[in-house]
């Protein structure tokens, strides 16, 4: 160990940390990318998850599009056009898989790292702050989600289920859906203290998956519960994707986008704040 040089210590007090001190934000050093890099490193040891994350929505697409599509020939969308069932359901599957992927990454994985692996404790002993951890974990969930969504879109396009050039924006939209759900999911996870609490997540996700105008248009729901459907985040994700992939573009899409952005920002701040409260005691 004679060669171990004890020269100048590595310090990079960043301008970002100085800036964030002026705002009521949880501390961060602008180094969230290293949290992402760490996850990518760990992921190389478990790449099988990548295959399953991609395969699931594609299986859904073919079983629903081809199976149900044979029974239901066309659907009148809320935008007023008449489309084959597979074309109708593909955007909803894209939105749901963006949600599912984000929730998986930001709940199960984060819970394990937070409560068992103590990964964040060891990160907080370095210049990294709680905000870096929240942003990094959510960013990682988005990266994975973007990969799945891109693959899904390619398959859907090849199968002739994409009808508009607006569909190019479906990928960033899927990332936005991932952001909203990853952020809220991570925030919720910081309140969980046992694996049983994950039942609440399933309880929230499953009905949303089924009833967010995913498999049939909003107009088929009884008048009295439409507002409930429209209040769920997945509804806005589905509506956004459907608008883009079918080329039914209007101001409503801006509303859906805003809803998801707000959810993502609130979730990310909440998650960072909670990590600070839990670990920096």
């Amino acid at each position, binding site marked *: 160990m004679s060669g171990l040089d*004890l020269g100048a210590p590595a310090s990079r007090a960043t301008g970002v940390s100085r800036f964030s001190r002026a705002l009521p934000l949880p501390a961060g*050093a602008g180094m969230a990318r290293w949290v992402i890099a760490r996850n990518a490193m760990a992921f190389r040891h478990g790449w099988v998850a990548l295959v399953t994350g991609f395969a699931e929505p594609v299986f859904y697409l073919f079983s629903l599009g081809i199976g149900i599509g044979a029974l239901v020939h066309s659907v009148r969308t809320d935008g007023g056009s008449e489309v084959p069932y597979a074309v109708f359901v593909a955007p909803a599957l894209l939105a749901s898989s963006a949600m599912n992927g984000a929730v998986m990454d930001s709940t199960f994985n984060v819970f394990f790292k937070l409560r068992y*692996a103590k990964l964040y404790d*060891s990160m907080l002993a370095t210049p990294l702050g709680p905000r870096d951890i929240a942003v990094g974990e959510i960013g990682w969930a988005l990266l994975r989600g973007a990969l799945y969504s891109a693959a899904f879109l390619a398959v859907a396009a090849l199968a002739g289920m994409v009808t508009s050039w607006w569909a190019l924006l479906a990928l960033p939209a899927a990332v936005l859906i991932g952001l909203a759900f990853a952020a809220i999911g991570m925030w919720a996870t910081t309140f969980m203290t046992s694996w049983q609490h994950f039942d609440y997540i399933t309880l929230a996700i499953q009905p949303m998956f089924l009833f967010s105008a995913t498999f049939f248009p909003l107009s088929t729901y009884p008048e009295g519960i439409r507002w409930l459907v429209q209040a769920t985040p997945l509804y806005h994700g589905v509506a956004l994707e459907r608008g883009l992939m079918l080329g039914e573009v209007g101001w409503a899409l801006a509303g859906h986008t805003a809803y998801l952005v707000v959810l993502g920002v609130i979730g990310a701040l909440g998650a960072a704040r909670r990590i600070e409260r839990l670990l920096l005691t």
Partner: protein
Amino acid sequence: MLVSARGLTKTFGDFVAVDGIDVEVRRGEAFGFLGPNGAGKSSTMRMIGCVSPATGGELRIFGQDPAVDGPAIRARLGSCPQADMLDEELTVQENLWIYGRYFGLTKAQTRKRATELLDFAQLTDRRGDKVEPLSGGMKRRLTIARSLINNPELLLLDEPTTGLDPQARHILWDRLFRLKRQGVTLIITTHYMDEAEQLCDRLVVMDHGRIVAEGSPRDLITRYSTREVVELRFDSDDHADHIDAVTGVAAASRVELLPDRLLVYTDDGDATSADLHARGVIPLSTLVRRSTLEDVFLHLTGRTLVD
């Protein structure tokens, strides 16, 4: 002065874990916190490591305030918490690589440093293995190696050898000596008096969140104990029965009662033993030994360090 604390306090709800301690750690020394479980050592270390805000008092590390400059201070620190907290999803060398990046080192810097540190931690031949199957001693060495990735000026070690077998402890002590020789300032907590004696230039004895004594190991022993101790075990349930017979024996200044033995503090162990024999006090066993920090702790608090 690398660390200075004035009236440093940490409370959890109503419970006072650290009760207004004053500490100064100088550059280049190995400084110890010696105390039993629950004394407040880890709470103190976490405050110095800038991962736990102080409830009260003043704390400066490198002259900076953790509440304001936490990330900048942590960039110059190495920290080995009581639990290893290694990244078990990564391999041994990946643990070092990614940790370097958390400190803002470049990839080249990190790789070079990691190679040196693997050698230092005697883990070069395990570098591609997952962390999980490593022995306790190896994990501890990897934790220390990881905490050195940023060339810290100050290394915090919270109970570095707790839970390790004697051989692993000696390997670890040897590594820590090397660091000390290279000029790294060490702050060590321990409830092992032999560890404190071996490693620390200066230490404070901590109990119930307070500092009860401060000095070099030699210093403390001279101040709070005698040169030697005669340990007497009797064939009886209650060693208190024998206190009277032993009190006032030659060269002795004090007798302490433990559940399983009497400790006679003396300047001359042989003279004390001979006098006991002359008095007709016949214990099952008699052991004459040097005073240790354990005796200091017993004298100061009336309790033993390890129960």
